[in-house]
């Protein structure tokens, strides 16, 4: 089961991964919390749907994403 891990303290909440990048559309910026830098980190809404394609990782400038397959 592929999995994506968001490094919440590294994420700057830019939202690039949350746009039309994920083919399954399972990434959003967490509306209910901010990290210690004040950003809303990205989060996965439905890990079951993750295909491990890595598109989110590709567009992440930090990188704040790890992909497991």
């Amino acid at each position: 089961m592929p999995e994506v891990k968001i490094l919440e303290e590294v994420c700057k909440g830019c939202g690039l991964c949350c746009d039309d990048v994920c083919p399954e559309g399972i990434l959003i910026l967490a509306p209910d919390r901010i990290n210690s830098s004040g950003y809303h980190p990205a989060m996965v809404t439905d890990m079951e749907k993750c295909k491990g394609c890595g598109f989110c990782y590709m567009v992440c400038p930090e990188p704040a994403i790890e992909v497991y397959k």
Partner: protein
Amino acid sequence: MKKVFSRPGGLTDTLMRYCPGCGHGIVHRIIGELLVELNIREKAVGIAPVGCSVFADEYFNCDMIQPPHGRGPAVSTGIKRARPDCIVFSYQGDGDLASIGTAEIIHAAARNENITVVFINNAIFGMTGGQMAPTTLPGMRSTTSVKGRDIKKQGYPMKICEMLASLDGPYYLERCAVDIPKNVVKTKKALKKAFNNQINGNGFSLVEILSMCPTGWGQTPVQSKRWIQETMSKYYPLGTYRDQSKEAE
């Protein structure tokens, strides 16, 4: 389960301080991956410019030098001629390469120096607060073109790949972008080619990369990536402008 994508060994552990959504981070990561995949990290000497990526000397996990604004191609020439076994790459923005450093990049290309140049084109001066760059589009606002770039008074933007392609010297010139995953993949392919050219002693490679600058453009990261897709890449078409390996075939 194994980790298939994570922070590459060619980057240090220092977190990058670029703005959210800045294209620098994506390109740094690609180079970090290539330094390991091509097994050149321990031979590499990178040149950090003056500009937002002046801090690149903290981020690339290899020997680094930080020279004066625009002089990267000259410093790269000095290092490469003194130590031909090193893999030398000059990482530059549009102020560094297309403004103050135009003489140095043209002559390094004309000499077909066996170096790899990574040219980040975000059509604006980032570090100094968003002034007009030689690559700023006509009508585009900046802090020194508040009503939009006026062609009559401020001239036309510079298309670096096209310009360098007029020289006989350079071996490989390509323009890419890091707005969408497909283009990020193509950027990595181009940079891999550019590094391999140096490894094989073919000569001068430059990869120009259209990159987001949300802060400079006054946009969100997502708006910035769309602006590259819809506007910037129309003015600066992506593609190969010189590839002597193909011309030889």
